[in-house]
């Protein structure tokens, strides 16, 4: 640990950050860095690297031959399509829920607010089982939908979307709520006095402020839906080319001990997940910059 000449705990005098050298008088830099990096490497980085290492054993031709199989391509498509629909629905509903829970007072509000996080607390298998039984043609909701001619959602892509909506519910609302709570109401009042309609106030004054949070929530929900397994496994029905999402395909390849294919598919999914992560970091840093400019 090194205590160098300091001005603020955050930046060294010349504003540079030195490799593994902190500019703080607070003790424990060496220990905390050591523990953090060691545990991070053991739990996350080394295991994740195994996928790169394993896929390096595949030739490029093998890799593409695996990925370009119609069943694999369809599973990517089904995954992306269903996750996108589910997260878009969650984005709109999340915006409405955040608005209602921050701006309105009504009986039962705290209960609804507390319920939002149920998908984090309820094991996904349990949710998947309940949603499957409810939406199958013998179930309460599925039966009713069948009777009116829509058809039971279970074992179709609509069922997958329903499961993904369930797991993604908290992300957008929980991302927007704190931003909406901290929003300076004076701007809205000024707009109101200047004659703006409620819709104009929302679109021109409020929405630009909450858009980054909404997009980050969308990204989180999308990433979560894309990788979701537990709640989808029953409701999907797992018909190749139709209701087989990529995580299910990875699982079935593993059950056949086809590690190479599983790794190749997983690598594509990982790259996709990292792209989403990267996009969200970009949105967040731009939003931070915007706030900083004021």
């Amino acid at each position, binding site marked *: 640990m090194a205590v160098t000449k300091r001005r603020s*705990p955050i930046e060294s005098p010349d504003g540079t*950050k030195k*490799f*593994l*050298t*902190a*500019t*703080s008088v*607070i*003790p*424990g830099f060496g220990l*905390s*860095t050591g*523990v*953090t*990096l060691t545990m*991070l490497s053991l*739990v996350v980085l*080394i295991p994740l690297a195994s*996928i790169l290492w*394993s896929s390096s054993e595949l030739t490029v031709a093998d890799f593409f031959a695996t990925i370009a199989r119609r069943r694999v391509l369809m599973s990517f498509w089904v995954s992306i399509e269903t996750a996108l629909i589910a997260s878009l629905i969650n984005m709109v*509903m999340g915006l409405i829920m955040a608005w*209602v829970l921050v701006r*309105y007072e009504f009986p039962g509000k705290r209960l609804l607010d*507390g319920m*939002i996080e*149920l998908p*984090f607390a*309820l*094991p*996904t*298998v*349990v*949710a998947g*089982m*309940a*949603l499957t*039984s409810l939406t199958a043609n013998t179930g*309460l909701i599925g039966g009713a939908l069948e009777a009116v001619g829509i058809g039971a959602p279970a074992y179709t892509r609509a069922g997958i979307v*329903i499961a993904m909506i*369930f797991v993604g*519910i908290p992300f957008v609302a929980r991302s927007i709520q704190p931003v909406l709570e901290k929003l300076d*109401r004076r701007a*809205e009042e000024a707009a109101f006095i200047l004659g703006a309609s*409620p819709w104009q106030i929302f679109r021109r004054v409020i929405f630009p402020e909450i858009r980054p949070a909404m997009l980050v929530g969308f990204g989180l929900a999308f*990433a979560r839906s894309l*990788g*979701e*397994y*537990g709640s989808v496994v029953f409701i999907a029905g797992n018909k190749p080319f139709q209701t087989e999402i990529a*995580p299910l395909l*990875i*699982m079935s390849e*593993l059950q056949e001990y086809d*590690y190479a294919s*599983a790794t190749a598919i997983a690598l594509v*999914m990982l790259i996709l*997940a990292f792209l*989403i*992560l990267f996009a969200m970091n970009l949105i967040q840093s731009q939003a931070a910059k915007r706030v900083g400019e004021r």
Partner: protein
Amino acid sequence: MQQHSSPWVRRLLIGLTAVFLILFLAVPLIFVLVQSFSRGLGVYLSAITDTFALQALALTLVTVLIAVAVNTIFGLFAAWNLTRYRYFGYKIVNTFIDLPLSVSPVIAGLIFLLTFGRASPIYPLLTAAGVRVVYAIPGIVLATIFVTFPYVSRELIPVLDARGTDEEEAAALMGASGPVIFRRITFPHIKWALLYGVVLCSARALGEFGAVAVLSGRLRGRTLTLPLYIESLYQEYSYAPAFAVSSILVVLAIVILVARAAVEHKGDKRGEL
């Protein structure tokens, strides 16, 4: 402040929120509870006192305990490290910690299968030492640690960031040692956030399915966690027992939500969350 929007917009939005949440969250929850008693109390009790169910519960609790302990230790060190010091690469470290959140649970299982399984270079060493990771309990525990890895640190980092470092610096300049600073100054500020992180981490560890499904040998009574056991019951069309065992997890989920609300309320009052 006065409401600008008309009352029917307000009613419509509140109605939409209520219908959406009730349909997607309350109905499935109530459905599980109703289904679990659908064959009567006798079936319910025999399902939840089944030896395999109890063994699955025990394995789940041990797994949760280890995962929460490991991630709490990590969370405290990482949060301290990432908010108290600025060094080259701290942003990258911060991003890496959150990686497990964007990795599919199935892939989380796969990476441990590749690291410790038959295809791994250390597999001969592990076999020679008699250690089984894959299709055994260590694999289940490792995968659970992985998927819940950021849960504690993520709750602590914003709180520590918001507090700033002034008090700790003052203490350090007056000669307080690291442990004393942590115990007397930092910890009182983060205890509610820490508890919140632990609750979230337990919830996720309790319900983890995909990652554990890859690494479990699915031996009933040996390597089945509660969610895996429930799945196996459901696959055998033993619906009432599957829902009965699920009801334990539903009750735990409700307890977690209430605990979460209580912790948040307490922390809110003190402005520490």
